[in-house]
């Protein structure tokens, strides 16, 4: 029983990363109608950002946790202003090409500079060792990553449901034209939302650095699963995407435990089943956005 609970917790830790990434993807898609294929590359940049700050400037994990998302928000702003914005209203394929292209460029730039081998990143001293969770011991760092992820997801949820900004963003997501007609400048919110989504990916990257391999391909490996997560949760549904993130993490952990041979495809089986049963995802709206 303890073993089972431990494995469930494992899955939730994995899911924390899916959740954070899916959250960013979902807000971006909701507001802009753009599937950001560069999300994995931004996650990778987040991890590398932490690594570079530590090795070049001696800046520790805690500061990186703040600085890197800010830097990525700036990068996101640039990408939105000078790239994504120009393609609104065109076939979604153009934005797919743009963001996918950005992925390739970022990956190769990092490869050029740091090679393909993984870079070392130590755990912060305060989070070394294990912590007693009552039923079992668990590595402190992973508990921390889980807590940060849950905290952030809750904060974003509160922001969206309890504040005026959230109200505008939600309204703009649902009916951009109508919101505009009510006198809200929808376009003003597009850039900040995009930047925010990118910053979340960067934050997930910093969180991943101490426990995962930091290399140029880490995002590419991750993003496939995250797209499956977003499809399961329902494109554009913020709540659904986050929930699906944790659910997929859980499914993978239990899959690896009980049917290791099938663990790899379980996520995609779930995706296929969900698509057959509810084509717009578990929490997606019935109508698809153009």
């Amino acid at each position, binding site marked *: 029983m303890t073993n089972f609970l431990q494995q469930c917790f494992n*899955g939730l830790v994995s899911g924390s990363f899916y959740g954070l990434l899916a959250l960013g993807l979902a807000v971006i898609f909701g507001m802009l109608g753009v599937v950001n294929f560069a999300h994995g590359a931004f996650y990778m940049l987040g991890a590398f950002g932490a690594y570079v700050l530590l090795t070049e400037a001696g800046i520790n994990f805690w500061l990186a946790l703040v600085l890197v998302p800010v830097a990525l928000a700036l990068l996101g702003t640039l990408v939105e202003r000078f790239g994504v914005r120009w393609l609104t209203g065109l076939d979604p394929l153009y934005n797919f090409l743009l963001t996918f292209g950005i992925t390739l460029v970022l990956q190769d730039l990092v490869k050029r500079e740091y090679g393909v081998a993984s870079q*070392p990143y130590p755990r912060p001293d305060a989070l070394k060792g294990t912590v007693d969770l009552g039923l079992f011991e668990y*590595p402190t760092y992973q508990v921390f990553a889980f807590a940060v992820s849950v905290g952030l997801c809750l904060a974003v949820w509160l922001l969206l449901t309890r504040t005026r900004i959230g109200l505008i963003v939600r309204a703009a997501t649902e009916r951009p034209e109508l919101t505009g007609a009510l006198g809200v400048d929808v376009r003003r919110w597009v850039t900040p939302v995009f930047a925010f989504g990118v910053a979340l990916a960067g934050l997930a990257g910093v969180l991943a650095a101490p426990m995962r*391999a930091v290399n140029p391909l880490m995002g590419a490996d991750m993003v496939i699963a995250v797209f499956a997560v977003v499809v399961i949760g329902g494109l554009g549904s913020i709540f659904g995407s986050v929930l699906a993130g944790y659910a997929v993490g859980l499914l993978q952990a239990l899959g690896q435990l009980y049917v*290791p041979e099938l663990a790899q495809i379980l996520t995609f089986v779930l995706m296929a089943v969900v698509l057959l049963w509810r084509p717009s995802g578990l929490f997606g709206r019935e109508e698809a956005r153009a």
Partner: protein
Amino acid sequence: MRKTAVLVAGALLLSGCVGGPPKAGGKVSGDKIVLGVLNDQSGIYADLSGKNSVEAVRMAVEDFKAKYGAKAVTRNIEVVTADHQNKSDVAGSKAQELYDRNGADVILDVPQSASALAVAKVAKDKKKLYFNITAATTELTGKQCNRYTFHYAYDTYMLANGTGTAVTRQGAKNWYVVYPDYAFGQDMQKSFTTAVEKAGGKVGVKDPTPFPNDNFSTFLLKAQNMDPRPDVLGTMQAGGDLVNLVKQYNEFGLRDKGIKLSVGLMFLTDIHSLGPDAFAGTTFTDAWYWNFDARNREFADRFLKRTDTRPTFAHAANYSAALQYLEAAQRAGTDASDDVVKTLEGHSFEDVFARGGKVRAEDHRVIHDAYLAEVKPKSAVTEAWDYERILRTIPAAEAFRPVNESGCTFS
């Protein structure tokens, strides 16, 4: 009088070193030998082999020219290179291109087993030489062997035989093996199971893992909750997955819980990426180590000057294979494939990479000493890249799969 004696003695010595003139001159096609290096130059194997392997091959060409001077079978030696992107179809077509368009006499390196086997087929069809260095599959010298293909540095049998046997004999009888669920991982798992059982241990549980995978917690937790608890966790992961697994192995503190870590395939670059402390005490099999003795070190110093990094065993093996190919062409006095193959088969040699080296005529496995190595803790590391302690030299004759088990018939 004395002066003349010294001169004569010197001349004799020199001629002894040089090994006399080639048997026949002018038989080199196009009066040029072309060495083709086909490998991964931007993907996961780019650091452990990649462009620096091309540099190692260039070093071999320079050394060969310096050694033979005007007596070389040809002074006109070219190194060409291509990136196969770890895709077997690309590898196959690039190999054809290298042989046909670039006039390559031999192809070197080719990491990734599926690509390696694709190139072996091309070599067989074109009747051109092929030295595989960075791929692990024993198929190259097994059922899919051919007259023109040689397997140079290592293979799954050698890794499993070295590590599995040694770690089991050290007292870790009960193994838990995790392996990535694709050809290399499955091969390694089988080889390890065989080696462990032969040494009197057992593989209690073996689990395939998704590939690629960034969370191994499930398997690590499973290991610590097993009854009886395994003595050692054998991981067949490579590259980024290996780094993920080891980071998490340390986080869960399995070493303190009495579960040792044993790694199937590890390159110097892997230790470098996590730092030695993450792997400290891990036993593994290495084909070559740069700081093993003065001779290796001298090569590593030259390599460092040109590339800014220390050589992995793949780099050294590329150097050695290029050199041995050129030496064989020198002995044969030609670059005609069949003649070169003939002088290679059964040939015994010794160079900076291959100690006790021999090209087995029966299956074209190039055998040489292998090394059982242990990762040093950071406190014992005295200079950059100096991560390994060599525990034992595994003599060439024991290190590789016996000929009678290979199943190679050259048909």
